[in-house]
């Protein structure tokens, strides 16, 4: 079929997209933007029972410049919104955003003067996780959905450009 038939077992052919996406989706470096109680469930995902390391996504970076995935975990209020936007802007492409819990997704029950009604009013979001807080299983499910999404992207075109 491919070049393997000519060159034997010393070669493996693939598409560039597949190879790069395979590397990207199994090596997420997260930026945990943790503001509220959802952080407890997020820590639980890191711990041995749920073990997010099985997905290659266990490594938190506390500099946005080194991170691929922005986890917005908890309530974001209007006072904090410019900080979130700045963190997002500082992340290098390619980058993804996960809205973790109902507060980050829609403001949750904080329908008031102070709370951003969903972080997608401030930054673009790839995956939303409902729940107050979400179960760790839901977080792993979201991570797998994000992996699926990453595997359909192409390296030749930046998103939104």
């Amino acid at each position, binding site marked *: 079929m491919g070049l393997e038939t000519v060159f034997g077992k010393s070669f493996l052919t693939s598409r560039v997209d597949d190879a790069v996406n395979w590397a990207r989706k199994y090596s997420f470096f997260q930026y945990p933007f943790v503001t509220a109680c959802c952080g407890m469930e997020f820590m639980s995902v890191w711990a041995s029972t749920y073990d997010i390391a099985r997905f290659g996504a266990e490594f938190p970076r506390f500099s946005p410049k080194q991170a691929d995935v922005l986890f917005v975990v908890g309530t974001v209020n*209007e006072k904090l*919104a410019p900080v979130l936007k700045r963190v997002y802007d500082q992340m290098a492409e390619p980058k993804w955003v996960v809205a973790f819990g109902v507060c980050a997704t829609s403001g949750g029950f904080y329908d008031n003067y102070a709370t951003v009604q969903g972080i997608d009013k401030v930054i673009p979001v790839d995956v939303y996780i409902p729940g107050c807080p979400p179960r760790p299983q839901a977080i792993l499910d979201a991570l797998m959905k994000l992996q699926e999404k990453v595997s359909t992207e192409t390296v030749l075109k930046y998103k939104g450009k």
Partner: protein
Amino acid sequence: MTKEQSGKGTMTITEKIKEKLPGHLLDSGGFRGDETVTLRKEALIDAANYLKHGLKFEFLMDLTCVDYLGVKEPRFEMVYHFYSFENNLRLRVKVPLSLEESAVDSLSSLWLSADWYEREVYDMFGINFNGHPDLRRILMYDGFAGHPLRKDYPLKKRQPRIAESVKSKT
């Protein structure tokens, strides 16, 4: 019960305040042994001085405000909670304030803890504090218009700092 606990004679805290500040006590009451006095705002700083140094209410536990819009006049009511370690007594002091004259003396010269409490009340209710060292918003951001815990602040009013230009990618 407070007659014994107050330590000085047989007068209650309310009676002592009434004697010390004649004409300034608007109302008084009690609930399960804790007394409440309502004072005119002109008497607040004198009353606070007397409470701290005379009656040994060393601790300002809390300081907040209530907006009784449409319920009673004057509209605002400052509420102070004091505690006396020495006598194990609590005291609630209320000070009614109208919208037109919504300024009251700051207690930050007597209790440093009043500093941030009063900033919060200023932020949420727009009450001004005479003599406060640094009266500015503490919770809401600079540029926020209005005072959100006033009952006439629109329930659904939003003041976003970032224009909603980006939409969800999904």
